[in-house]
C-alpha cells in the first residue's frame, strides 16, 4: 500500500514537472513570437488547416525577407478545438507566456468570446481572421481587432444587394443552423429584407451534424419560396442542397462565407449548382496583389485559396507591419493596431484595405461567387 502510494505521488509529481517544464522553456530572445489559436484538431480541424496555411505562407515571406527589423518571427500554435473551455486554457497559456506579443485568433466566435476576458486582463492584442460575431467588439475593450466583416454587414448585404439585384427574387425561405454565427446572420438578413421589401416565407432551424433535413425543408417548401437562404456551414449546406432538389426545389440557393468551401461541391454534387455566396475574398476579383497571393498559395498549399487563409495571411501581415513600427511590445502593438483607423492609415493587403473602428471592427467589401457546372466562379 505504501509503495503504491509513493508510486502515485511520483507519477503526479512527474505530471506537474512536465507542465512546468513546458511553460518555462527558455526562448531565444532574438525572435518575435506570435500565438495562433484555432481548432487544429477535432470537428472543425479543416478550418484550422486553412488558417495554418495562410499564416505559414506569410511567415515564410516575412522570414525570407529577413524578418521584422532583423528579428525572425516564430509562431506558437494553440489548439482550441473551437471549444470555449479549451479556448480559455489556450488563452491563459498565451497570456502567461511573456515572449508572445500578439495573437492571431481565435477562429470561432464563441472561442474568441471565452478567451477575450483573459487577453484583456493580460493586455494581449488579438486579431481574428474569422470571428464575425458582433458582440466581441464590446467584450474586447480595445484589445480585439478583426480582419473580417461582422455578421451584421453580411446579412444586410445579402438581403439588399444579392437577392433583389443579382437573383431578382422577392420570396425567400431561411434555413439556419442554431449557432451564434448563423443566428446573427439570419437576424441581420431579416432586418435587411424588411428594408428591401423582400418577403420571408418561412424560417426554420437545424442542429449541426444533422443529416436529415427533409421535415423542415418540406415545411419551408409548402410556402413556395423562390430562393432558399442556406444560413450555416458547408457540410450541412451541401446536404440541404441535395435534399431540397430531391423534394423538387429548382430555384437558386444562396449563402454566406460559411458555405464557401470546396467540400460544399464535393459532397453536394450536381445539386449545388445555382448557389450564390458572399465571400470576403475572391481571387478572381482581387487586385494584382491578390492574384499573386492566390498563385503562391496554390504553390505552397497545393490547393485553391479560400477566404479564411487569405484573411489569416493578412492578419499576420498587419501584425508584422505594426510590430516593425512599434517594436515587439504588447501595449505598443495594441496602440499601433488602433492607429490603423482611417482609409489613409489602413493596411493594404490581399483582401483589400483594412482599417479598424474603435471596437476593432473593420469595413470590408463582400464579393459574390456562384456554383456553375460544379465549379466556383465569380457571379455574373
Amino acid at each position, binding site marked *: 500500500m505504501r509503495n503504491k502510494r509513493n508510486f502515485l505521488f511520483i507519477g503526479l509529481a512527474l505530471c506537474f514537472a512536465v507542465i512546468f517544464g513546458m511553460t518555462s522553456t527558455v526562448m531565444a530572445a532574438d525572435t518575435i513570437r506570435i500565438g495562433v489559436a484555432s481548432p487544429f484538431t477535432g470537428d472543425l480541424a479543416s478550418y484550422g488547416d486553412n488558417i495554418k496555411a495562410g499564416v505559414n505562407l506569410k511567415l515564410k515571406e516575412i522570414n525570407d525577407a529577413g524578418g521584422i527589423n532583423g528579428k525572425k518571427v516564430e509562431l506558437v500554435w494553440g489548439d482550441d478545438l473551437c471549444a470555449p473551455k479549451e479556448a480559455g486554457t489556450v488563452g491563459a497559456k498565451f497570456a502567461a507566456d511573456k515572449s508572445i506579443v500578439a495573437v492571431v485568433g481565435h477562429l470561432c466566435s464563441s472561442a474568441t468570446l471565452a478567451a477575450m476576458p483573459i487577453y484583456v486582463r493580460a493586455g494581449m492584442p488579438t486579431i481574428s481572421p474569422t470571428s464575425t460575431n458582433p*458582440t466581441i467588439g464590446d467584450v474586447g475593450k480595445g484589445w480585439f481587432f478583426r480582419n473580417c466583416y461582422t455578421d451584421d454587414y453580411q446579412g444586410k448585404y445579402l438581403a439588399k444587394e444579392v437577392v433583389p439585384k443579382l437573383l431578382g427574387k422577392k420570396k425567400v425561405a431561411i434555413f439556419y443552423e442554431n449557432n451564434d454565427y448563423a443566428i446573427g446572420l439570419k437576424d441581420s438578413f431579416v432586418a435587411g429584407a424588411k428594408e428591401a421589401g423582400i418577403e420571408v416565407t418561412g424560417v426554420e432551424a437545424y442542429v449541426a451534424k444533422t443529416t436529415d433535413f427533409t421535415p423542415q425543408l418540406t415545411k419551408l417548401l409548402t410556402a413556395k419560396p423562390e430562393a432558399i437562404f442556406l444560413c450555416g456551414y458547408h457540410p450541412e449546406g451541401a446536404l440541404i442542397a441535395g435534399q431540397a432538389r430531391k423534394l423538387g426545389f429548382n430555384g437558386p440557393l444562396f449563402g454566406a462565407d460559411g458555405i464557401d468551401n470546396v467540400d460544399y461541391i464535393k459532397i453536394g454534387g450536381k445539386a449545388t449548382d445555382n448557389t450564390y455566396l458572399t465571400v470576403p475574398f475572391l481571387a478572381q476579383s482581387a487586385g494584382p496583389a491578390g492574384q499573386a497571393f492566390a498563385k503562391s498559395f496554390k504553390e505552397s498549399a497545393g490547393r485553391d485559396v479560400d477566404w479564411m487563409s487569405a484573411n489569416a495571411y493578412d492578419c499576420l501581415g498587419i501584425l508584422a507591419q505594426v510590430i516593425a513600427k512599434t517594436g515587439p511590445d504588447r501595449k505598443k502593438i495594441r496602440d499601433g493596431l488602433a492607429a490603423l483607423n482611417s482609409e489613409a492609415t489602413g493596411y493594404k493587403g490581399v483582401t483589400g484595405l483594412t482599417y479598424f473602428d474603435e471596437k476593432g471592427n473593420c469595413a470590408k467589401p463582400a464579393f459574390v461567387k456562384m456554383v456553375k457546372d460544379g465549379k466556383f466562379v465569380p457571379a455574373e
Partner: protein
Amino acid sequence: MGRLSPQNLSRGDMIRIGLLILALILPFFPFVSDYILHITILIFLYMILALGLNIVPGFNGLLDLGYVGFFGIGAYTSGLLTVHFGLSYWVIIPLAFANGAIWGILLGAPTLRLTGDYFAIVTFGFSELVVLFLTNEIWLTRGPLGLPGIAPPSIDLTLFGGPKWEFAGELPYYYLAIVMVLVTVFVMYRIQDSRLGRAWFAIRDDEIAAVSCGINLLNYKVIAFAISAAFGAVGGSFFARWVTFLSPDMFKFWESFLILCMIVLGGMGNIWGVMIGAVVLVSLSEVLRELLPLLGLPVQVRFLAFGLIMVLMMRFRPAGIMPIPAVAAKMKAGRVKRKRGTAAAELKIGSTTGLNK
C-alpha cells in the same frame, strides 16, 4: 485508507496537511505562471464536480450519465442572476445549490425506482435536454450566442464601512477554489461517516439486505441524487463567475464522461482517490496537448486514451487506483464467480454437447 490504525491515520493526515500547505503557497513559487494557476483552478473545479458525482456511483452504486446537466444548470443560474440582477456571488452559491437539488429531486423521484440501466439512460437524456433548452431558449439564455460579460465575484465590505474588492486575475479565484474544495471535502467526510452515508453504503453493497434493515431505498437514493446534483450546480456557479462567459456547448456529454472517468480512475467511493483522479486527468489532458503534436499524433489520441482508460480500468482494476475495500470486493466477487462457475460449466458441458457445433 487505513483509517483503522492510529499510526496510519496520523501519517495520512500529515500528507494531507502537507499537500494543503503546498497548495496554499503554490502561487508564490517563481515558476508558477497564470497558466499554471489556471490549470490548477480547473483541477480544483473538477475536484468539486467529481466529489459531487461520486455520491451517486461511488456511494450508491448507480450510474449517472447526466451530471453535466446539473453543472450547466448551476452555471446558467449563476450567470443569469449575475447578468440580470447583479447578485453577489455569495448569495448565488446557496441559490445554485438549491436549484441543483430541486432538479435532482424532480428527476430522481420518478426514475430512481427503476433499475440502474434505465436510470443511467434517463440521466443521459436529461442532460441532453438541458443542453437543448439552453441552446433554444434564446430569450432567456441568449442560446448559442453565448452569455458574455458575467461580472467576477467581489468581496463587498461597504456595509461595514470596509472596502469593496473585486476579483481580478487568477489568484483570488485560486484561493476561492481551495476554500470550496475544502468545504466540499469536509461535507463529504461528514456525510460518509453519518447515518445517511452508512445507509447509502448498505444500499450499494446489498439492496435486499438494506431494505430488510428498514432503509427506505427510494428516499435515500433521491437524497443522494439531490446532493450530488447540488454540488454539480455549485461547481457550475463557480465556473460561470470564473470564465465570465457561458455557452451551451460547454455542457456536452463529453464533460459527464470526463468526470465519470476521474471517479473510475481514482476509485469509486474514495474521496481521496476521486480527487487524485481529477488531478491526473486534467494534467494528462494538458500534457497530451503539448506532447502529442511533438510525437506527430493527432489530438484525438487524447480522447481515445480516456476511452481506453475506462475500458482498461474496468478490466484490470475495477475499483480504481485507490480502491475502497467494499467496492473492490464487490467488483471482484463477480470475477471469482465467473472463473469457478460459468466457465467451469461450459468447459464440462459446453464442449460435449454444444448447440452451435
